[in-house]
C-alpha cells in the first residue's frame, strides 16, 4: 500500500456528553500507523475538544484531552480550527491547549499544530481531501 491519501477527520461535537470525540481520536491514533496525509478539523461544538483545563473528575468520565498534545509524536500536525465556531462560542485561541509538533524538516523546531481558518477556508480544506470521516 504505497498510495498516500489525504485523510480529514472532522470533529463537530463537544468532548463529553457523547462518545463521538473520544472514538474519533481512537481512529486518528490507529490511522497514524498507515502513513497517510492526515488532518483534523474542529468546528461547531467540536472546538470545545481542544480547550485547556478540562476536568472530568466529577463527571466520572475519562479526560482524554491530553492526547491531543501527543498527536505530534504520531506525525499528526495539522489541526484546523474554524474561527467562526470559536467566535460563536466566545472562545479565542488562548482558550485552547498549546499543541505543538517538532518539525523534522526544520531542525526539529517546535511549531504550533493548530491552524485557525475561516469558514470559507475550512470549505477549501475539506474540498482538498480524498477521504473525509465525520464525527
Amino acid at each position: 500500500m504505497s498510495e498516500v491519501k489525504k485523510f480529514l477527520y472532522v470533529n463537530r461535537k463537544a468532548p463529553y456528553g457523547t462518545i463521538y470525540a473520544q472514538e474519533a481520536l481512537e481512529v486518528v491514533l490507529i490511522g497514524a500507523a498507515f502513513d497517510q496525509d492526515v488532518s483534523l478539523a474542529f468546528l461547531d461544538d467540536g472546538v470545545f475538544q481542544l480547550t485547556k483545563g478540562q476536568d472530568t473528575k466529577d463527571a466520572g468520565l475519562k479526560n482524554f484531552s491530553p492526547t491531543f498534545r501527543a498527536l505530534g509524536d504520531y506525525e499528526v500536525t495539522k489541526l484546523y480550527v474554524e474561527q467562526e465556531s470559536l467566535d460563536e462560542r466566545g472562545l479565542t485561541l488562548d482558550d485552547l491547549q498549546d499543541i505543538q509538533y517538532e518539525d523534522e524538516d526544520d531542525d526539529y523546531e517546535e511549531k504550533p499544530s493548530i491552524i485557525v481558518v475561516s469558514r470559507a477556508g475550512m470549505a477549501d480544506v475539506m474540498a482538498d481531501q480524498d477521504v473525509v470521516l465525520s464525527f
Partner: protein
Amino acid sequence: MKFGIVVSEGPYTHQASDSAYNFVKAALATGHEVSRVFFYHDGVNVGTRLSIPPQDDRQIQEQWSALAKEHELDLVICIAAAQRRGLLDQNEADRQGKDANNIAEGFRISGLGQLIEMGIQADRTITFGD
C-alpha cells in the same frame, strides 16, 4: 466505482443503517462495487443476532446478513467499539471470559485499521451517521 461505507449510528434509533443498506443495495444493483461496510460507534449494534423487532417492522440485521450472503459483502464491526457495547464473536467471548457470543451471520469483528484501509482502497468513502 468502488465504495467504502461507514455506518456510525445504531439501528432503529437512527435511520443511518437503513439509508446505508438502501445505498449499498442500489450501488450493487447498478454495477458498482462495495469493498467493505464498516460499523462504528453505536453502528456496531446492527450486528447483534439477538435483536427482535416487532413483526410488522423491518429486521435490520437480517437485511444486512442476507445482502452480505448474496453479494459476498465484507461487513466489519469495530472491535474497540464492539467491546464497549457488548458485541462479541466466539473468539472474543473465549478470550474475555464471557459466557456467550451474539454476532450475526455475515458480520466479522476486526480493528480500526480496516476502516483506514477501506479509505485508502475505495474510490469514495461515504459515512452514514446522524
